[in-house]
């Protein structure tokens, strides 16, 4: 059964003077899902959220919530609510009045407001805090009040702008789980903005990765991680060893590649010979071997080993000074420091990506490709 889209962004553009902050964004948010918008600072994710909320107006394109275009609607007329990064609690009102505000604006009856507020506060585990003022609360408590204030209005979509940024690590992890449970319990659609990829991977049903105003990829976490579709996503999500390579030979799905530091094998579809591509392989999938492996001629020296509890990361330096990370579980056999090793991986574990610009392509035509052939 196809998921119903509750928020749709069609060809949305946002410009501040000469600065194009969001570029031709097309995105759908499905009803009931937890969608994270992930990206580095300045990628346009917060701007996108604010456009859905109504604090910014798009320069072009349309935004639909529940099928209705919302360009002409002020924030107070939309069925979405926002949890602000700074919480934005009203300092002159008690916790109760803060949470009740939205209901008061809709002119609900006093008894109704009272029961709804109490219910919302118990959902965020703040019963008994009604008469306190924001200045008397800790960061984590203020955060919960901000959430309660938003969800008490039973919005169709809840927008969260990096809500956990100001909390310490332990509290953050705890809140991540609580928010996830809350979302499932209330069955509200969550659109969650963050720059923390671990957070996004943990909490989301789907992740939308943005960079420089462009949507790079939108998919379920496992796909984003295992099959990044652009160099940026491969680089931003998790750790990866990234290579520039030229396609030498294609046999069915097995592709032989030549790189600056040697040859390797990958798999993929839709590539053609002599194409310049990127190859990305995760450190946990990268393997070392004392003897050369068929199809691979990458060779390097293991410079150092870093132990971080459950994992051991080995840094290997190839002939062209490129640093490779190899992660193994602590206790498992790992390459010894100082030894020369051959690099390899299972061809299916490498992700091949088309290079994004034609500039690189034309540059390749001028370069002496013999430098890319395997060294023996």
């Amino acid at each position, binding site marked *: 059964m196809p998921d119903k889209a509750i928020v749709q962004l069609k060809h949305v553009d946002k410009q501040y003077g000469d600065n194009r902050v969001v570029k031709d964004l097309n995105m759908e948010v499905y009803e009931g899902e937890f969608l994270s918008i992930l990206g580095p600072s300045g990628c346009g994710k917060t701007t996108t959220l604010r456009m859905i*909320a*109504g*604090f910014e107006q798009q320069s072009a394109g349309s935004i639909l919530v529940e099928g209705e275009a919302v360009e002409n609607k*002020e*924030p*107070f007329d939309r069925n*979405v*609510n*926002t949890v*602000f990064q*700074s919480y*934005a*609690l*009203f*300092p*002159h009102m008690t916790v109760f009045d803060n949470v009740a*505000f*939205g209901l008061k*604006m*809709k002119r609900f009856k006093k008894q109704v407001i009272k029961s709804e507020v109490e219910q919302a506060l118990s959902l965020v585990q703040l019963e008994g805090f009604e008469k306190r003022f924001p200045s008397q609360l800790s960061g984590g408590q203020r955060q919960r009040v901000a959430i309660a*204030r*938003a969800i008490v*209005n039973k919005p169709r979509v809840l927008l969260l702008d990096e809500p956990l940024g100001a909390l310490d690590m332990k509290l953050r992890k705890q809140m991540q789980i609580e928010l996830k449970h809350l979302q499932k319990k209330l069955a509200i659609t969550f659109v969650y903005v963050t720059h923390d990829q671990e957070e996004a991977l943990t909490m989301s049903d789907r992740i939308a990765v943005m960079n420089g105003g462009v949507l790079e990829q939108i998919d379920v976490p496992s796909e984003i991680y295992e099959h990044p579709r652009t160099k940026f996503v491969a680089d931003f999500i998790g750790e990866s060893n990234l290579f520039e390579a030229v396609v030498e030979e294609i046999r069915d799905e097995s592709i032989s590649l030549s790189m600056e530091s040697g040859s390797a094998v990958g798999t993929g579809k839709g590539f053609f010979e002599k194409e310049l591509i990127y190859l990305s392989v995760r450190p946990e999938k990268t393997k070392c071997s004392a003897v050369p492996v068929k199809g691979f001629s990458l060779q390097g020296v293991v410079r150092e080993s870093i132990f971080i509890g459950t994992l051991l990361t080995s840094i290997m330096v190839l002939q062209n000074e490129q640093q490779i990370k190899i992660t193994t579980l602590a206790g498992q056999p790992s390459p010894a420091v100082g030894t020369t090793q051959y690099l390899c991986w299972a061809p299916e574990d490498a992700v091949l990506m088309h290079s994004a610009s034609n500039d690189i392509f034309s540059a390749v035509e001028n370069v002496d490709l013999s430098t890319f052939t395997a060294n023996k």
Partner: protein
Amino acid sequence: MRMKLKTSHKLRSKMLPLITMVSPVTLWLTLLIVIPLLYLLVISFASTDASHNIEFSFTFKNYAKLLDPTLLTIYGNSLVVAGLTTVLCVLIGYPFAYIMARTTPFRKTLMMIFLMLPFWTNSIIRLYGWRTLLGTNGYINNILETVGIIKEPLNMLFTREAVILGMIYTLFPFMVLPLHTAIDKLDKNLLEAASDLGARAVRSFFHITLPLTASGIFAGVIMVFIPSLGYFFVSDLLGGGKSQLIGNVIERQFKEAFNWPFGAALSIVLILITLLLVKIYTKAGGNVDELGVV
């Protein structure tokens, strides 16, 4: 023996710099504020002899004079003028301060400069400019007559309204500055949050903006109301003989009538009114630190 020396030396090294720094101001303010005000209180109970010298007797007659109906009318009039001035300053000053707080930093500095610039020049001459403008043959009447709005020149000068205009003109920045400080401090996120939760512009203003900027309004009120009680030169220039305010009466006691004890008594009453207002201000949650923030 050695222990004693040590502690006294320690105390001296900590106390000495503190005393050097703080004693000048303490001395100055005691000699030139506390003592003069106390002296004022003393002579308010004194009387004068035939050659207008102060005779240090103890009498209530200066205060008894306050119950004179003419004087009470003047006090009343002064309070009304001060009150209307303050109210109008708030009504004009608040939107102005709001616009200033919400605009770009460049425009904000520009607006601030242009607001303060007139106050670097002579108040008297500017008020005289108003006298020229408001006169029966002045420009305002001229333009109104030419355009046809009025048939006869309006009598604007030497009225209570002219005095209020002059007061507003002179005290306007003292309302705008504390208001601007308060509005500037308002977190814009709060207004977005209110809007997100369903509050339209008007309700957002009354539920969020106004309560959170109230301290600025209170500070501005104090900074306008109190001075306007004593600004005798405004009523002098624009009110003429008709609009006599309490400041004028006090001034006359010292420069013409030479009845200093009476003038002192009138001033003491003024101080009491001031103290009352400050009390109300602090009770209403006003922070005394916010006064005088220019």
